[in-house]
């Protein structure tokens, strides 16, 4: 986890975001909470592949912080590997809604024709937190994105540090910190979600 920690609260827009902290070791892979978390992530990946963002938004909490800082190459021991004060995404519920609303217009040209997407989700582990009904879930995501017939496909590899909250019997995404593995992205834009 040391890898994901440094940037965790470095966004100027994170003041209203949940501050829940994970506790203890990762849960057993047979733990009911872990199984629920894993199932939630896999189901989510199918929604993101299908660009069914309307349904996806239904499982996003009102106080969500969806954050992907810009990675930079720094010397060993520099103590940071993200660009101070700069992100690719630094979203709250409203800005995520606007992004989804745009894809739902008939004029979001960048995804017409749509990309063929496959989110591969792996390395899932789950932690209890200091808040009841909230769990922390780590995962790795590899996105394969193909556009047109012979354009070179693009790959985005990232680690994710999620906070899931149970509300009325359903898990909702309350925080997602994405640590993308490239400093210079090799994809034409981020008209996708991770």
């Amino acid at each position: 986890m040391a890898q994901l920690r440094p940037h965790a609260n470095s966004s100027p827009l994170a003041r209203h975001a949940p501050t829940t902290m994970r506790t203890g070791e990762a849960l057993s892979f047979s733990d009911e909470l872990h199984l629920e978390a894993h199932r939630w992530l896999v189901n989510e990946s199918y929604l993101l592949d299908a660009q069914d963002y309307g349904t996806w938004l239904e499982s996003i909490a009102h106080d969500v912080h969806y954050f992907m800082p810009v990675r930079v190459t720094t010397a060993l021991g520099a103590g940071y590997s993200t660009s101070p004060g700069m992100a690719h995404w630094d979203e709250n519920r409203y800005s995520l809604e606007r992004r989804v609303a745009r894809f739902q217009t008939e004029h979001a040209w960048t995804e017409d024709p749509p990309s063929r997407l496959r989110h591969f989700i792996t390395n899932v582990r789950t932690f209890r937190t200091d808040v009841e009904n909230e769990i922390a879930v780590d995962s790795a995501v590899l996105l394969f994105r193909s556009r047109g017939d012979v354009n070179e496909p693009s790959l985005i590899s990232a680690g994710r540090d999620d906070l899931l909250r149970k509300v009325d019997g359903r898990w909702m995404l309350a925080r997602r910190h994405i640590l993308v593995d490239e400093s210079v992205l090799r994809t034409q834009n981020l008209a996708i979600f991770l």
Partner: protein
Amino acid sequence: MDTIQQVLADVRRGMIPAHIYNDAEIFELEKERLFSRAWMFVGHESEIPQPGDYVVRRVLEDSFIISRDEQGTIRALFNMCLHRGMQVCRAEMGNASHFRCPYHGWSYRNDGRIIGLPFHKEAYGGEEGFARKGATLLPAPNLANYNGLLFVNMDPDAMPLDEYLGDFKFYLDYYTKQSASGIELRGPQRWRIKANWKIGVENFAGDMYHTPQTHTSVVEIGLFREPKAEKRKDGMTYWAGRGGGTTYKLPPGDLEERLAYIGYPPEMIERMKQLWSTDQLQLIGEDAFMISAASLFPNMSFVHNWPKVEEEGDEVVPFISLRMWQPVSENETEVMSWFAVDAEAPEEFKELSYKAYLMCFGSTGMFEQDDVENWVSLTNTAKGSMARRLLLNSRMGMLNDGTPVVPALTREEFSGAGSAYVGYSEHNQRNFLQEWADHLEKPPVVAPSHAVGITNGQLDQYSSKGA
């Protein structure tokens, strides 16, 4: 097969051979004759505020350490060890008193001077074999600063930056000098797109015509109220010095009301009034034009927009972004996109302005997403043999005989620098390509080579003394 002279002649009459957007030979000429002598943006003072701070930036294939030394002087040092040519700094940013080459351990102060040369005496016989004194990482041929913007020029005989920018400085100030403290930069976001570098430059320089079509969706979702077709064509495009840009026409009101309309708080407006020239203030207050996108030759662009970023209320927040279209090849460009904000702006303004930037431009920006899709597609199509037969018509705003569709604004209508036309046109794209064509006709730059560690005239042929 057309000759380069034919290509340039076509470009000069506003007819663009489509293949210039994906042509390896043209790209070689651009490297040899254009990027070799144009002033290229490498960063901003605010990115390296403290002694020892550095960022590493490329000018095409050349890597430079942009460093602030212990005395506070900013330098651009070629990132190559004087001994075997290893990169001496392999991070993108940081703070260092010196850079040590990992290969043989030569080390350099952050002003470029050699400080450590292992076994200098034993291996070289000391100063007589390798003159360490005065040896320094190779500085960029030219480094200059305007409003904190740092530019490098690879031509030792380059014209001064001030002269190069010319009247474009009038507009550069709106983006980079809203208070005496200037801007601070964050980022850049970096990503690579399979598009020719010129397309984005031309788009930002003057393409108001694409806004209502390409960016329909951002108006539909309530992010931006301005780009509706009837509004965009009321703006003017200007060309001044080596850059040009687009504007929006603002609703009736005075200077303060118009700056407030796009979201500037009173204290920021007050500082602009103190700092900007009478003409700079009148362009907004009297002529009702507000700067939006712009490009500076050859490959730097600017954006200034004012979206609605919060759910409650109707308030908009302005943001500024700077960017480089760094060519990788004839069909690939690395975009480097920075968020810029006035250093004296209130913290709350800075946060919302950052939010506005992320929602609109950059790697995730909702405007930007649709632009890049178009440019990648254009670049792909420009590759084949049919593109070599097609002359794209880039004569918008001009009749067959060369007279403009609408006359240039007069001094009574327009307080800005350069020439300006209201409405849709491609005057700016043509001005950009005119400058491009002028550069491609120049001879290649001749630059001296630098021999390191030797005293001129004392070097003997290594073979003459034998082993």
